[in-house]
């Protein structure tokens, strides 16, 4: 569903992402992990069509992001860690607006279900200024799901959610993947990644360090056998992470 080949993004002399290639199949949840400044956000922004790669290609559902951006984007949903909402649209209007943009004519029946699933029913007529941080995050998630995307890109999706919201969000991601949606999830919460992701993509300084299931990653590095994901991550990224 998502195919990335030789993705490179340069800012002047600085290369944020270097020759990154990977794919996400329908029904798969790929966890994107890496230390701060590894190039995760740049990768996600390029995948969702926010920034243009300096080199390489991105295809979603077979549509090239450079040549057919509208068709590629129509299959995608990007849910950022910091929800970006329009100050002057209510919760329900956000969903109607997004549905129209993505040409989701059948969204009318999906909107009430989404409002219920994300506990936004009571807030359907509220403006973003009347919502808490967690509610805003839920609305951003609802906007991402309203057009039933084939590929879901999530950047720290649990930020701002309460424990019940976190459990519900995990269920939402898992159920979407089960229904055939390709999910790319970036998070620093390694337990979340371990729980939800079928494969891992570890990047550091813009380069791919490892990709595969945890078993596949460990198989190529016998010294990591028997270690938890946190230790594997720290070993792969070369950060001892020893407490001071």
């Amino acid at each position, binding site marked *: 569903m998502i195919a990335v080949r030789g993705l490179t993004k340069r800012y002047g002399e600085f290369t944020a992402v270097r020759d990154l290639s990977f794919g996400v199949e329908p029904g798969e949840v790929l966890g994107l992990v890496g230390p701060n400044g590894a190039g995760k956000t740049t990768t996600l922004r390029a995948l969702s069509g926010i920034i243009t790669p300096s080199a390489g290609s991105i295809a979603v559902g077979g549509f090239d992001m450079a040549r057919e*951006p509208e068709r590629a984007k129509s299959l995608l949903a990007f849910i950022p860690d910091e929800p970006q909402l329009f*100050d002057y649209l209510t919760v329900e*209007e956000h969903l109607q607006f997004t549905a129209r943009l993505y040409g989701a*004519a059948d969204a009318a029946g999906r909107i009430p279900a989404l409002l219920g699933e994300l506990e936004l029913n009571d807030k359907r007529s509220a403006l973003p200024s009347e919502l808490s941080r967690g509610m805003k995050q839920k609305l951003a998630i609802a906007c991402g799901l309203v057009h039933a995307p084939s590929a879901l890109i999530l950047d720290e999706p649990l930020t701002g959610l309460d424990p019940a919201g976190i459990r519900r969000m995990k269920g939402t991601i898992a159920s979407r993947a089960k229904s055939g949606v390709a999910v790319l999830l970036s998070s620093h919460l390694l337990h979340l990644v371990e729980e939800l992701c079928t494969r891992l993509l570890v990047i550091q300084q813009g380069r791919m360090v490892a990709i595969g299931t945890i078993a596949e990653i460990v198989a190529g590095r016998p010294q990591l056998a028997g270690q938890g994901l946190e230790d594997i991550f720290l070993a792969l990224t070369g950060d001892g992470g020893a407490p001071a």
Partner: protein
Amino acid sequence: MKGPGGALAYLLARSTINRARAWVRRITTPRYAAAFLVGAGYLYVMLGRSRFPTSTPTTGIGDDFVPLFYEMAVVLAVVLTWVFGAVEPGIYFTPADIQMLFPAPVSRRALVRYKLVQAQLPILFTVFVWRMIFRSTSPSFAPGRASALWVVVTTLYLHRVGASFVKVSAAQRGLSGLRRNAIPIAVVLLAFATFIWGIVDAFPAIQAAFDRNSPQGVLSAIRSTPQARIVLWPFDTLLAPLTAHSTAERFRTMGWALLILAGCYAWVMRSAVGFEEAAMQSAERMAARIARVRGRATVPLRAWRPLFRLSPSGRPFGAIVWKNLTAFQRLASPRRTIFFAVFTVLLATAWMRASTTAASMITGIAGGGIFWLAFFGAIAVRADLQQDMLKLQLLRTYPIRSATLVAAEIGGSLIVISAVQWFLILCALLGFLFMPVQPRTVPSALIAGALPKLVAIVIALPAITGLRVAVANAWAVLFPSWVQLGPTKTAGIEAIGANMLTVFGSLLVHVLLMVVPAAIGYGLILALNTLSRGAWAYVPAAIVFSAISTVELWLIAKWLGNVFSRTDPSAVDAALS
């Protein structure tokens, strides 16, 4: 300096230095350098030449009227502080101050001292601006007089802080709080009572001045009483160095003024009450106030029902236009709308009454609000990329062609402005038809001469306005750091320069864009006039003008769409930093 005092001094010094460095870094980047130079030039021209001419330039602000004016201003400031001053600490603690300094082992007095020193930066800036304003007409407004002004401003600031502490103390502790501040309260009450006593004593003289219709006489009668002279003594003493006519006189009077300043400082330091809780509430209020000042979007919004319901199916173009129209509708407060409606009716009526012929009426209307909207409406309405550039990342994820997105963004503002323009024309027309202005001559004159021009204006206006909105949007995409994006607002010399460059630059581009369509339209008028089409020649000319402008608009949207799709979100982030 050791201990917390040293830490606060370090905080103050580093913050000032880093702020200055950041500002210098900002204004030396190419995108701000030009704006800074233009802004600095403008300020030099405006402030370098005083707007306050005096009759005797050599003495400048030391004229007879000036001491009285200053005295009244200072008395008023003091009275207002006590009567209307809010019950909150007169010193503002930022959220960072509250979070970092309140839990730290720092005494209240040290905190107050820190804030008082911090307040010196804006006070010194105020003094500098006044010095610039009075520099040319008052050569004697030299450092000596500037330092006298500094004494006055600082004393007033200290007085405001002290008075606020008294109020906070009274609010927090009730009677015991009042007892704690018994001396300052007694001084204020005594001064007030003495002043009233003086007015009662001088009542016959005041009455006589009133009868003579002489405000100066009233003031003179009040000020000449012994009681008023006692009450006004601290004010006159404080102001004496500022209004002194010579350096020697200033030196002689400065000591007493400094003594009053020192007294206020001692009072503030002594009465530093438990201001923490009030300071936190004040910080929250201030944050809301700043948010309100910075933008319309942060004004509490009402979720009014949208003008029309968005159909779930259809072109994405419609969704963007709907979003922007809804935004404008919700951002336009009822008060502002009523004000605009009243203003419109008054304006139209004024034009109508002033007009004696249909032609002059049409010219008056066209030359007024309608064309103001055509050329400047884009700055006021902003239901387009001037607002949405802040959502660049979100917009870029939408499955919509960039050119279509840009066109839809332009469309939002264009619809709003055009609707207002047509409403203005309708108001004027209705008013004209029903007002008793030469009723018998109106219809024929209207039909013969003005109606074709009016129709032409109605046709051409959206094209003119559309080009202006397109230019404003292009400016927002190309120079995000020079434009007020959404609710953001920047301050400083470079912001003044950026505004000037934006307004004049975009106006120039707008005019240039209209040259070709206007020339062709004018050519058509000349050609049709040879066929004796009269005033009706304006209508096809307006249609041609609009058609060519629409092609230009389409080309701009296409080009701007390309630029928009290539714009890095970090450029917008940088513009806001």
